[in-house]
């Protein structure tokens, strides 16, 4: 997604990235980033919290209006309502990221991609 933002910025379109995986977006480097310290899947606020979701988008708008250099980053002030325990568990052996079924499907797709690549089709 950050790669797309960069191409748009290079070509005269202003962008803001609203994200949770701050380090990944920072490493790529984007013009403007609104980071919410929330689990993957909820970059625009907690599910069903419409007021918070509006505020996250408004922070994005303010970034568009005020940033004057690239890599401008704002961390939204919100805290995950159920606490921070998820941070210790995501991507750990104690809590597999995917169910075994989804992981198998992912591995099959990966293998398919390798095959296409070997055949020069991608």
């Amino acid at each position, binding site marked *: 997604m950050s790669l797309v933002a*960069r191409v748009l910025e290079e070509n005269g379109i202003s962008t803001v*990235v609203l994200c949770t995986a701050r380090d990944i977006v920072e490493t790529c480097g984007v013009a403007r980033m609104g980071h919410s310290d929330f689990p993957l899947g909820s*970059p625009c606020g907690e599910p069903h919290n419409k007021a918070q979701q509006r505020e996250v988008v408004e922070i994005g708008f303010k970034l568009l209006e005020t940033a004057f250099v690239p890599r401008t980053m704002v961390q939204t002030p919100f805290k995950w309502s159920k606490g921070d325990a998820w941070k210790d568990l995501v991507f750990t052996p104690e809590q597999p990221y995917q169910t075994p079924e989804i992981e198998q499907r992912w591995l099959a797709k990966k293998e398919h991609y390798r095959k296409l690549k070997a055949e020069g089709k991608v």
Partner: protein
Amino acid sequence: MASYVRYIDRTRDYYKTKGYEKPYQWAHFEDVPFTPLKKPLAQCRVTLISTSEITVRGAEHKEGDDESNVGGMYSIPSNVPVEKLYSPSHSYDRVATTLEDVDAFYPTTALHEAVKTGRIGSLAERFHGVYNAYSQRRTRERDAMEVLKRCREDGVDVAVLVPV
């Protein structure tokens, strides 16, 4: 308060425990392009771009070639009611959160409200989905260029990008 999760380190360690020795090479650039806003936001046309595999109920067949993780992009009309949208993506923290509220990762309601209140000028006719691809070159040279082309066709000034 715990600091934010370093996903690059975390996923490297996680997949190492699963036997993947070669870590994923995340995209990294020193220089970052920057386009200042050229006019007031209240006059700007805005689009939304997502990696959530956002899908319109009843219109599941999309352009693009997601099945092989090759990449690809597609567009959906920006005026699809939020009730008709869902995400079949598995790329999220399934224990901590859900994708049942589309607006939490694809803020179409907030953007439509922003038009009504005059905060932004208008929305582009199309919003866009981009599939995550193994090939960063594919994303840069094909998918991002197609997004750019469609943004230009739609007269887009501003893009809000939301990685899930």
